């Protein structure tokens, strides 16, 4: 599902965010990427999303090579990825339902199917009753749930969550992590970056990857 070989990411300003990363993640894995702020967690997710391209090495996501010349294909690749952002990236002035629908608008769903699938996704994240609420009237935890619903409505093969608990209180953070980890199944892998290691200590069957200074310093766990 994800194969990274000797990938280095150096930004235009010369900052090297990732150095010689090697990683293999199979289908149906739950992966926690931990590390302090500025360690390269978000840069790794940017590489996997095709927002950045490796300066060296190779990155393959769902069989798609991440490279500048593959820009169009990368855009299509993203349709199989469910991204969840730290800042939610929900669109203000739109309802929760409209935000969720935004995840599939360009996938050729009929309006009827789009609405029913979006309501189902909102139900899965426990927010169906607030489908008509404008997102600016929702709490941060609820906004994150809307973002998760927007990610899962596409039934993606890969869910990438970048610090999904970063802006949340403890209860909400635990609840969001539980929700995200529950999305893992045989076809769907879930990658979550977080610096809140205390929240994931009790996770079973998960892969834990620690990044520091742009390098993978530890990798452990996995399905029994």
């Amino acid at each position, binding site marked *: 599902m994800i194969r990274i070989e000797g990938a280095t990411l150096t930004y235009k300003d010369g900052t090297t965010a990732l150095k010689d990363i090697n990683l293999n993640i199979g289908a149906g894995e739950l992966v926690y990427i931990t590390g302090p702020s500025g360690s390269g967690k978000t840069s790794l997710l940017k590489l996997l*999303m095709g*927002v*950045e391209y490796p300066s060296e090495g190779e990155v393959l996501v769902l069989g798609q090579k991440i490279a500048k010349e593959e820009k169009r294909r990368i*855009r*299509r*690749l*993203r*349709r199989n*990825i469910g*991204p969840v*952002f730290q800042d939610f*990236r929900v*669109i203000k*002035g739109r309802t929760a339902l409209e935000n969720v629908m*935004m*995840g599939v*608008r*360009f*996938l*050729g*769903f*009929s*309006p009827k199917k*789009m609405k029913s699938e979006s309501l189902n996704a909102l139900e899965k994240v426990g927010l169906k009753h607030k489908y008509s609420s404008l997102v600016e009237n929702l709490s941060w935890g609820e906004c994150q749930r809307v973002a998760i619903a*927007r990610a899962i409505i596409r039934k993606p093969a890969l869910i990438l969550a970048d610090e999904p608990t970063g802006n949340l209180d403890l209860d909400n953070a635990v609840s969001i992590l539980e929700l995200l980890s529950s999305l893992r199944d045989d076809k769907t892998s879930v990658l979550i970056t977080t610096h809140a290691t205390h929240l994931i200590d009790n996770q079973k069957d998960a892969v834990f990857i620690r990044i520091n200074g742009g390098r993978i310093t530890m990798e452990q766990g996995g399905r029994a």
Partner: protein
Amino acid sequence: MKSVLFNMGYFLKEAYKTIRLNLLSNIFSFIGTVLILFIFALVITGWNVSNRLVLMLKEEAEISAYYEENLDEIDKDNLIGLIEEIDGVLEVNLVSQAEAYNRMENVLGNEAGILELFEENPFEEYIEIRIHLDETERVIDRIENIEGIEYVRDNREILNRIEGIVKTLNMAGYIVTAAVGITTIIIISHMIRQGIYENRFQINTLQLLGASNSFIGFPFLIAGLLMILCGGIIASVLTVIAINIGFGQLSGTIPFIPLPPKNELVKHVVVIIMTASIILGSGGSIFGLSSIKEDAER
């Protein structure tokens, strides 16, 4: 295509939101577009009327040929026949002394009394020749070389001036058309770019979710087209009002100006303005949409 059809309501809603987002700025852009299209419509109207006038003047371009005094009626008929055969000659008429006198009386109007000072009719008999304006030089040369023709009086200076006016009007028309086109494209593309800038967060999010640029840009294209089409409609209405007022005034004060049929003119101008609106709106929107690619996706 399916995405476009299924999302038409969404696109229209987004287009409306784009226009609303920068309402004041877009109102100014809209007013600017209406005024530019209105000016364009007036230029087209003027062009149309002047073309018709020039066409008429071209058709009315005529020269006078004076022949030797000793020619009898048969010689005159032969002369007329020879002139009629020349390419560029539209019509040939013999104007008698009496007719020449009457015409001058008509021209002088209230001042015609001055002609009574002459004991005899001072005008000569001549051949009046209507010619094609573009063939003036060649036709005059040919007529001057016909045996029996004493001299040819032409209005070459006036005819040349008419030709000059035609060329100037055409040039001015082309310049105004180009200026209108460029200005409209700039206004619309600027409006679209502004909309894209204001919506960069949403655009970037859609890009991260995997939407294509054409899907993302569609509402902006609709917004640009809607703005300019509305601008075109208002400019057309203003032009129709202006034409009505203009026709009323011109036909009353300068009755000899050959105005084209009003309905025909209105139809012609409205069709051109609406077609130009669609073309310029699409062009401006597509030009503006190119800024989506520059969006800070990376």
